[in-house]
């Protein structure tokens, strides 16, 4: 494995448990370099966990997580923080630093990791904010921004150091159609213009399928299937078909497991 392997991230037989619950059971996923790869699946299937495993914010119970050939869980604290300088992550909430202005938020990675002079930092911040269309908001505080704007500022901050790998955690959740359209376009545009590798974790099917080069569908502790969006749309696997077509019932049942409906009704006023 070299730094120039075709795959920037490789999960090899990764197992992860939360308490007694198994989230991933010997999962194998490979993220091709330079592409937009989507990780999709129903809520609670471990999509965000997947990103946190790559960023080593969680440690697996077994298996290897290779990023640029380095097994991330084995890295020491300092080496890990250095490795993270090459990754960018857009959190669901944006996670802007609330005591810093938009300018200072985007300048933060540059200030802590570089010795660039102030005027150059200002130029880079302006470039990044221009890329996400928010140069005009440079003097605002995070609480003066809408949800969509916060996410775009967070995106500008995440790409401030020109990372090799960008990870998006549910970027489309809670966005109005215009903001969603802007984000969809930005993810694809930034990936191609900056030569990044992007991982988009989402359950928003249409938006994600429109920009992804490759999709992994996860669920039930396993990778249910993977392929190009058009291949998955026509998949024979009933679980993948149910997810891709958004059918309410199927292999993934509509009802949470419960005792017989009639038994529950006949219990009268006794609590379940």
């Amino acid at each position, binding site marked *: 494995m070299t730094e120039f392997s075709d795959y920037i991230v490789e999960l090899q037989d990764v197992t992860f448990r939360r308490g007694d619950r198994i989230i991933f059971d010997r999962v194998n996923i490979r993220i091709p370099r330079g592409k937009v790869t989507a990780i999709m699946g129903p809520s609670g299937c471990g999509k965000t966990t997947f990103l946190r495993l790559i960023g080593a*914010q969680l440690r697996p119970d077994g298996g290897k997580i290779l990023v640029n050939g380095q097994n991330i869980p084995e890295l020491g604290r300092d080496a890990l923080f250095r490795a993270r300088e090459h990754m960018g992550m857009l959190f669901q909430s944006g996670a802007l630093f609330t005591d810093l202005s938009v300018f200072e938020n985007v300048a933060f990675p540059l200030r802590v990791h570089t010795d660039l002079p102030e005027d150059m930092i200002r130029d880079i911040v302006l470039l990044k904010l221009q890329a996400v269309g928010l140069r005009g908001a440079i003097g605002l505080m995070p609480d003066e921004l809408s949800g969509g704007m916060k996410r775009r500022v967070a995106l500008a*901050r995440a790409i401030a150091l020109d990372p090799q790998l960008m990870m998006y955690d549910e970027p489309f959740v809670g966005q109005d159609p215009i903001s969603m359209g802007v984000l969809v376009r930005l993810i694809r545009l930034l990936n191609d213009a900056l030569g990044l590798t992007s991982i988009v974790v989402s359950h928003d099917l249409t938006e994600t399928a429109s920009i992804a080069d490759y999709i992994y569908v996860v669920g039930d502790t396993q990778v249910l299937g993977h392929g190009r969006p058009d291949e998955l749309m026509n998949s024979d696997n009933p679980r993948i078909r149910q997810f891709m077509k958004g059918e309410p019932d199927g292999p993934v049942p509509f009802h949470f497991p419960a005792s017989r409906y009639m038994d529950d009704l006949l219990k009268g006023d006794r609590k379940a």
Partner: protein
Amino acid sequence: MKTMIDRVALIGRSGLDVLAATGRSGVFLFNALVGRSRFGNGFQLLVKQLYAVGVLSLAIIVVSGLFIGMVLALQGYNILKDYGSEQAVGQMVALTLLRELGPVVTALLFAGRAGSALTAEIGLMKATEQLSSMEMIGVDPLKYVIAPRLWAGFISMPLLALIFCVVGIWGGAMVAVDWLGVYSGSYWANMQNSVQFTHDVLNGLTKAVVFAFVVTWIAVFQGYDCEPTSEGISRATTRTVVYASLAVLGLDFILTALMF
């Protein structure tokens, strides 16, 4: 029988949880304080926290110190008067403040004012993923967020305790000398004769340093280790005040037994 075994298991589990939390807090403290920060602006971060933790606590410390000094003088005067020793009220106020009330009350107020604020602030940063995003930017929150707050607490609380004592002694003088008519020379001379720098002032300061360490450690750890929900932050803030207060009072007994 089963219930009995369940209870024993519950006690065992609680014991293990306490041990695990103690271990986590030790590793947390080590990682925050040991090793140099890679970030050049550490001093600026410290100054900002000294202001938030220390300067903003001044008002409550000064006002409390003033009233406690005044009450001590009033009570001391009433008791000592019966024995004709009201001239010793200065000595009593100074020794009580320097040895006990200065460090202890400052620590309790500090836990309530600054400790709870530290826990809530760090807990909220965790709940809003600010700490996670900092990690993903390649910045260690233990060095960038936690360490400046720990040092600010360690530095500012002993200074606040000294200010508390000075203001308290001055408040005592206002009541004893200006109001109750104790001779000013007796108030200050008795104090000067009886207070020893090493035995009283330095021992009091040592207590303040120990309390500062414990209270700040508890406050930042509770924030960092809390469950990232509104309920979790609320529980962590309460725990900070309760644990820190109990730790201060327990340690005060041990330190007093060792020192005096």
